[in-house]
């Protein structure tokens, strides 16, 4: 890993700072909660400015609507640091941008890249993720939603759950079983499905935050062109894992914890307990500093991964750990904020006493990170099996009524 700051970067930093302090001040800094709604016209407008300046979609080729910059780890760091330091609104973060676009760049056809990447990074084309099913969560590869070929079309039938953004998305990247005879990992295909297709029924799924970011999606004879496949038939699991790799990256985004630490530090300077500022109380401050240590480790770890990627050093165990690490970290950061506020941290009514940032909502919402995209337990399996080369647990079928009776499969 090389992290040289040369004089040429001082100029770049000044340029980013100038942008944040001039253009950045013209837009509100309030970050959109992921999955909540379509980006506003203002957010799309801001996204356009960021792409033009090279502060988001930086390395995506110009022909696909990106900035077309050379990968430069120091510049990426400077952009991230200056945006956090000046509380400047970051670019749009959604599953289309963070998951589908890198997947298409890696395995999509030229036609798919030209058609989908530009509107997606602009924030104009919103994607839903059609992976989980009621009986196929951690064991995603057991999914049953099927697609059969009918002339030049796929006809899809089945049911999905946890389909985030489906209530307003334009498109959905969906996993379906196309080869029912093949072993479960080899019978899946990765399709791109317009959300205005006939036969789609989307129902909101209310979560513990009281909101419905997610949906259940029922598919009855949904028909899409056969060309809307990414990769080959039966290769969907490999393609999906490409996407999941990026989902781990998105959910493990180190910038999020830096913003959280900064927010809690601000909160602790404001909040007083019987006249003493929370930041002046070692019992809370030590917790903040411990979390800051973890956050900084994750931040520089993110840069190391970027460096590996640029130098084509590939992904090892160090890339597999980010989601597990960052999602618990976020949970603990939000938990500290609630603890610092005590009883007032539990308010959930928008009253004047719930006067600070909505930390409780973030605390509850942090389960999305821990559970979504493969639970922590699945992450640990991935880390130990794929990362550390440990053997899988034996494949057995356990009878629901007689657990001692094992059948090898």
């Amino acid at each position, binding site marked *: 890993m090389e992290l040289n700051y040369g004089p040429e970067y001082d100029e770049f930093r000044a340029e980013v700072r100038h942008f944040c302090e001039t253009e950045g001040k013209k837009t509100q800094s309030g970050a959109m909660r992921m999955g909540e709604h379509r980006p506003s016209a203002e957010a799309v407008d801001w996204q356009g400015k960021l792409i033009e300046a090279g502060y988001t979609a930086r390395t995506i080729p110009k022909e696909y609507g990106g900035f077309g910059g050379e990968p430069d780890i120091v510049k990426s760091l400077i952009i991230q640091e200056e945006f956090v330091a000046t509380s400047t609104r970051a670019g749009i973060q959604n599953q289309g941008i963070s998951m589908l676009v890198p997947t298409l760049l890696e395995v999509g056809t030229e036609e798919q890249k030209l058609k989908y990447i530009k509107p997606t990074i602009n924030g104009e084309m919103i994607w839903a993720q059609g992976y*989980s099913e009621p*009986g*196929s*969560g*951690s*064991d995603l590869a*057991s999914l049953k939603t099927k697609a059969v070929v009918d002339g030049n079309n796929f006809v899809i039938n089945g049911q999905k*759950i*946890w389909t985030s953004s489906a209530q307003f998305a334009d498109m959905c990247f969906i996993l379906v079983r196309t080869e029912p005879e093949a072993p479960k990992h080899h019978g899946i295909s990765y399709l791109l499905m317009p959300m205005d297709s006939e036969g789609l029924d989307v129902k909101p799924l*209310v*979560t*513990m935050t*009281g909101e419905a970011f*997610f949906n259940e999606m029922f598919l009855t004879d949904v028909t899409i062109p056969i060309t809307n496949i990414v990769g080959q038939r039966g290769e969907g699991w490999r393609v999906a894992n490409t996407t999941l790799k990026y989902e781990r990256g998105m959910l493990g985004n180190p910038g999020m914890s830096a913003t959280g630490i900064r927010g809690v530090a601000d909160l602790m300077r404001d*909040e*007083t*307990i*019987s*006249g*003493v500022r929370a930041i002046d*109380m*070692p*019992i*809370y401050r030590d*917790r903040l500093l411990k979390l800051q240590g973890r956050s900084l480790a994750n931040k520089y770890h993110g840069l190391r991964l970027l460096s590996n990627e640029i130098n084509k050093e590939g992904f090892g165990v160090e890339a597999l750990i980010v989601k597990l690490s960052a999602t618990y970290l976020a*949970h603990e950061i939000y*938990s500290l904020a*609630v*603890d610092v*506020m*005590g*009883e*007032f*941290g*539990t*308010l*959930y*009514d928008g*009253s004047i*006493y719930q006067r600070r940032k909505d930390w*409780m909502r973030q605390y*509850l919402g942090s*389960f*999305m990170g*821990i*559970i*979504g995209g493969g*639970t*922590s*337990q699945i992450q*640990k*399996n991935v880390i130990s099996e794929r990362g550390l080369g440990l053997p899988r*647990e034996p*494949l*057995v*079928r*356990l009878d*629901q009524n007689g*657990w001692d009776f094992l059948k090898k*499969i």
Partner: protein
Amino acid sequence: MLGDMLNKYLDTNLTMDVLRQSCDESIHHNQKIWSGLLDQGTHTILIPEEYGGAGLSMLHSEVVSEMLGNHIAPVSYLTNAVLAPLAIQHAATDAQKDKLLPEIVSGKVIYGVGLTDVVANRENSSLEVKAGKVTGTSMFVIGGQHADKLILASPGTFILVDSMAEGVAIEALSTVDKTRDFAVVKLNDTPCEVLGAQGSSTEAIEIVLNAARISIAADSLGAAEAMFKKALAYSRERFQFDRPIGSFQSIKHILAEMVTDLEPCRSLVWYAAYAFDEVEDEVTLLACHSKAHVSEVAKNISRATTELHGGMGFTDLLGLHFWFKRIEVNRQLLGGPELQRHIAAAAQGWAPDAITAA
């Protein structure tokens, strides 16, 4: 036996549907469930026999608190059966006791109790008592929204206020936990009665706070046990990879850790409840550690249980979140773990006295 009876009653009467309806409609004190508790006399456990109560111990009350936490019952047991009776017993004059304690036994009066400001004051709120009148604000009054009478603490003094009295304004505070209610009580030249003499209740406040810490710890203990049992049941039921998820070591070990953390908590809270009546010197230390330690363990159990249920754990549909939120509010109520440990340190002479001394 007390626990079994109550468990049976709550199992039958406080179904998930009843609980959900109570929460949806913000009925924080479910009168139907409460009347069942009145019938069993649970509200008189801590009231001496001479006032018509059962004259039992904190250990008996702990069993009730634990069971109510297990079922996350939307009733004001904490204020009516623990905090108000103890405040009256330890602070009030004999004449006040003669009037107020039998009234609680009759089950006709519902109490709200405000203690937060003497533990961790966050709004610079205070009460000024002069010549039978009180002016000021009491924050986070437990059960304040539906109370007939309020007992409010300020440093060294408990006052009693009728919630319908002149100059009383009660603002609802709505937390994530819909099974209990809290309020801001604002008083403007309101008639009030001091329990005992003004400034003479420092010890009584400490006793009531310790009772609160033990009872809240018991509530979280019960709620954590309920979550653990749900996690255990789900890990047997849910099949992935052609086997129950509980057959994977990654899940098995989570459950083993949960029970390893949980069982000693039970012993700690039980001993603290025993000490409340029998080992005066150790009460503050044990009460604070009970609340702090159970809060930490219950938080981990509620997080792990939610996690173990996968996406379903995060839904409203399954209702796990009602337990999660009760545990979270208990954690914060009357001081979170850090503050409790600080008080425990002070109780041993290991830290300056003031709760919030930096």
